[in-house]
C-alpha cells in the first residue's frame, strides 16, 4: 500500500481540521469554560434522609447543571458547586432535588466562589509542554544521530506533537460551541497525557524508519518510510485498539464525572496514533523532497497533492 504517496492529502485534512479549530478558537468564547475556571455559586443542601451523591448529581443535571460539583458533607448534606446562579435558578434546583432525591430540610445561603484553577495554570502548562518539546527535540536528534538528518526526526516529532495539541484543543473548542462540552482542570491534565503519548508513539515509528534506513542506506527515504509504516501497522493497530477499547469501556460504563476527561484521552489517542504515521513520518519525506519550502512559498497545498499523485 502506498501511504507516502498520498501525503498531501493528510496534510490537507489535518490542516482543515486545525483551521476550523483555530476559527472556532478565534470566535469568543474560545472555550466553554467549566466551573474550575470560572467563578460560580456554592451552597449546602441538607436533606431529611441519607442521600447518595450520584442521585443528587442526576437531579441537578436534569435542570441543566450537568457539570455541577457535588460532594457529600457527612451522610445527609451535600455541598454543591454550580456555574453562577441567577434569580430563581435555586428554586428550580430545589424542586428537582425534592422531587428526585429526598425532601429538602434546609438550603444554605448561596455564595459566589472563585475559580479553583487560575488561568495561570493553563499558561503554566503550556510553558511546561513547550519546554518539554525542546527537550524532546534535542533527545531525538541525539538518539538518531547515526542516520542522516537526525535533526529532522526531532522536528517532525515536535510537529506531530503540536498537531495533536492543536487538534484536541480545536475539537474541544468546537464541541463547546455546539454541544456545550465544558473545559475543566481535567482537560489540562488530559492534554499533558496526550502530549506524552504523542511523542512516545512517534518515536516507535521513527525507530522502525531508523532500522530500515540503516539497513539499506541507498533506498530513497520515501520508500523506507512506507515500508516502516507497513511493517509497524500491526503494532500500531494492536496498541491503539487495545487502549482505545479500554478507554471506551471506561466512558460507556464508568461514572459520569470522568467522562469529559476520558474523552480528551480518547480523542488524543486517536489523533496521536494518526499523526505518528500520517504527519510525523510524512513530514520527514516532505523535508527530504524539499516540499516544505515550497509549501511555504506557495501556501497552496494543491500543488503538493498533484505531485503526490
Amino acid at each position: 500500500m502506498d501511504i507516502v504517496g498520498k501525503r498531501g492529502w493528510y496534510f490537507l485534512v489535518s490542516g482543515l481540521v486545525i483551521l476550523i479549530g483555530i476559527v472556532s478558537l478565534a470566535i469568543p468564547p474560545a472555550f466553554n469554560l467549566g466551573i474550575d475556571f470560572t467563578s460560580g455559586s456554592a451552597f449546602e443542601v441538607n436533606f431529611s434522609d441519607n442521600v447518595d451523591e450520584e442521585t443528587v448529581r442526576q437531579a441537578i443535571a436534569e435542570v441543566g447543571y450537568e457539570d455541577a460539583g457535588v460532594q457529600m458533607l457527612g451522610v445527609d448534606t451535600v455541598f454543591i458547586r454550580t456555574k453562577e446562579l441567577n434569580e430563581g435558578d435555586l428554586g428550580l434546583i430545589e424542586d428537582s432535588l425534592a422531587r428526585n432525591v429526598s425532601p429538602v430540610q434546609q438550603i444554605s445561603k448561596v455564595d459566589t466562589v472563585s475559580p479553583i484553577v487560575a488561568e495561570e495554570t493553563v499558561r503554566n502548562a503550556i510553558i511546561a509542554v513547550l519546554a518539554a518539546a525542546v527537550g524532546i527535540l534535542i533527545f531525538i536528534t541525539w538518539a538518531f544521530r547515526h542516520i542522516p538528518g537526525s535533526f529532522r526526526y526531532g522536528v517532525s516529532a515536535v510537529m506531530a506533537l503540536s498537531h495533536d495539541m492543536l487538534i484536541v484543543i480545536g475539537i474541544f473548542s468546537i464541541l463547546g460551541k455546539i454541544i456545550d462540552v465544558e473545559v475543566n482542570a481535567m482537560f489540562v491534565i488530559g492534554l499533558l497525557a496526550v502530549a506524552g503519548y504523542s511523542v512516545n508513539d512517534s518515536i516507535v515509528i521513527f525507530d522502525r524508519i531508523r532500522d530500515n534506513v540503516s539497513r539499506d542506506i541507498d533506498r530513497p527515504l520515501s520508500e523506507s518510510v512506507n515500508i516502516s509504516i507497513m511493517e509497524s501497522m500491526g503494532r500500531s493497530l494492536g496498541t491503539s485498539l487495545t487502549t482505545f477499547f479500554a478507554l471506551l469501556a471506561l466512558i460507556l460504563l464508568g461514572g459520569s464525572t470522568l467522562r469529559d476527561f476520558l474523552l480528551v484521552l480518547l480523542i488524543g489517542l486517536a489523533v496521536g496514533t494518526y499523526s505518528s504515521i500520517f504527519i510525523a513520518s510524512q513530514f520527514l519525506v516532505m523535508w527530504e523532497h524539499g516540499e516544505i519550502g515550497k509549501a511555504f512559498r506557495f501556501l497552496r497545498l494543491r500543488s503538493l497533492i498533484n505531485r503526490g499523485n
Partner: protein
Amino acid sequence: MRRRNLRAFAFITIVVALSVLILSFQKIDLPGESFDREATGPLGLSLGLDLSGGTHLVYSAEAPVIVDISFESITAVNDIKLHLIANGYLNVAVDDYGEGRVSIRMTELSPQGEQQLRSILEEIDVIEDFSVRRENPTSEQMEGVVDVIERRINAFGVSEPLIQTFGEDRVLVQIPGAENVNIDAIFREQVQEAAVVDFLDQLGFGDAEILVIGPKALSISDTYTIGESELTSGKVVQLRSHLQESIGTVASFESDYETGEIEAVFEDQIYVSDLVDAIREFGLNDPYVLGPIGTEIRMRVEPSVIDVREALRVQLKEAFGPIDSYEISGGVEEAKSLIGQTASLKFMERSCLNDTCSEFVDKDTVGDKGEQLTGGNLEQAFADTHPTTAAPIVRFVFDGPGTRIFRELTSRIEGDSTKCVATFLDDVELICPVVNQRIISGDGFVEGPDFTYDSVRTLAIQLEAGSLPVALELIRESTVGAVLGDASLRASLRAGIVGLILVALFMLAYYRMSGLVAALSLTVYAVIVLAAFKMFPVTLTLSGLAALVISIGMAVDANILIFERIKEELRMGRSLRSAIEIGFRRAWNAIRDSNVSTFITCGILFYFGRELAEPRIIGFSLTLFVGVAVSMFTAITVSKNLLQFLAITPLKNKPNLFTPERLAGPSDGVESERQ
C-alpha cells in the same frame, strides 16, 4: 541461559513478593528510622481530594477594626502611637484627619476592649467622640489570603488542595486526607486502658486504637511543687492568698528559699492547668508546677469533626473524671493550624529590659530611614534547635533590605545593655535579646515558651509563605466526599477493571501464549507500580490517574512491540528461541528511546511544576515517571524471561502458539539468517 532465567525469576519473585507485602499492610512503620507510610485508601495508598475526599474547612476573615476618635485638642499622631504601643497595642496604625480627629486601625477589639482602649486614650487628652466600626476585607485582601494559604499548603506538602474565596469574606479550603486523628488526653486520675477501650466501643468508636498509655501516676498525694527563682517571704504570702482566692482553700503552704520551691496542698482536688494559670496570673516568671499526674491516654479515632470530638471530651469527663489536657493532633490538625494563624512577625527596639516594661522606640523606625522590619523581610525560615539549650527554634534569613535594616538596628543598640530587639509573633512578644555585637549576616532565630518541635515546623512554613493579610477564624469543619464523587468513581473503577479484562482477552486471543505472557507481565506491572506509589509516597489524584492510564498504554505497547518483532522473526523462519532473542533485541531500541523521551518529558514537567507551583503538573510527571520506569522494568525482566523460559519448554515446537498468524511451513531449526 537456563541459569540466567532462574536468577531472573528469583529476582522477579522477590520484587513481587515484596510489593505484595508492602500492599498488604495498611500501615508500614519501620523501627529505628522515621519511615512510616500510612493512608486510609485501599491497599494503604494515599488518595487525593478528587478521588477520596478529605476535610472541608470554611474560614471567615475577621474584619479589621477602625476606631474613630475626636480629641478635644490636636494631638501628635506619634504620641498616640507610642502611648498605644506602651500599653500593649502593637499592631495599630494611626491616621490623622486634622483638628484632633484620628482613626486607629487594629486587627481585633472586643466590646470590653473598647472601654479599656477609651480609658487608655483618655490619658492623652479628653475625648469628644469615640466610635468603632469594622471594615470588611477587600477582594484584594481575600485574594491575598488565598495566595498565602496556597503557598503554605504547598510548602507543607499536601497535594492538590482546593482553595476558593467563598462569598465576600470567607475562604473555602478542602484538603485531602481525613486521616485518623490522635486525641491525647491526660486524666486527673488513674484510668484503666481496658475501661477506656470499652467506653469508646460503646460510644461507637469501635475502631479506635489506644496507642500510648502513661506516664502512670507518680503519686496520689495532692502536693504540688511550685518553682520560682526569686522567692521572697512577701511574695510567698501574696501568692498564698492569691491561690486561696482563685483555686480553693490552701491546706498547707511550705516554702524552701534555698531551692526556690513551694510545696502546696489544697483541700479540694484541683486542676494542674488551673494552678499554672493562676500562678502566671500572679505575675511570676517561668513558674513550674509538679504534681500528681493521672494517666495520659492517646486515642486514635476515625476522622471526626470538631463537634464530635468536643462531645467525646464531655463524655470522657463524665465517665473518668476531670481531664487536664485534651489535645488533638495528626490527621489534618497540623494543616488546619497552618492555615489559620496569621503569623505576622515583627521586630521592635525596646529601650528597657524589665519583662513587664514596654518602652518602645517608635515601631516604624527600626531601620535608619524609618523602615519597618517584619516577616515580609524574610527570605527563608526553617525549623531548628537552639545550639546550646536544644530548644525548638525557627531560624530565618532576611532578604536584602531586611539584612540592611537588621544591621542598622543592631548597630544602633550594639553593646547597650539597656536595649533589646523585641520580637513579636502575632502581637505576642517572644524574646528580647540584647545585642552584644552587630549582626551583619542577616540571619537570626526566634524561640518562644510554647514552641514545640512540631509547632516550629508549621511556624517556619507560615513565616516563609508570608503572613495573612487578615486574621481568619475557622467557622465550619466537616469531612467531605471525593470531588469526583465516590459513587461515580466506584462505577469508573468497575469499568476500568472490565476494560483491562477486555485488553487481556484480546491479547490472549490474538497473541495466544505471548498474550498470556503479556497478561502476567501486566499483572506484575500493576502490583509493582502500586507498591512503588505507596513507598514513594505518591498521592494518587486524577492527574496521577491520567499518567497511570498512559503508562499502562505504554506497558501494553512494549509487549506488543516485542510480540510483533517476534512474529516477524518467526515468519522469516527462525526457531522460536532465536526469534524471541532477536525480536526482543529489535523491539528494545524502540522501547528504550520512547521511554527515555518520556522520562525527559517527566523531568521537564516536574521541574516546571515545581517552579510554577502547579501541583497537578508535579503529580502527573511524578506518577508518569514511576509508571514508565516500572513498565520498562517489567518488559525487560518479566516478559523477556517468561518468553525465554517458554522457548525451552516443549512449547518451543509449537511456534504457532506465539503468533497471531499461521506460519507457512515447518519452521523449527532454521537459523541460517542469524544476524
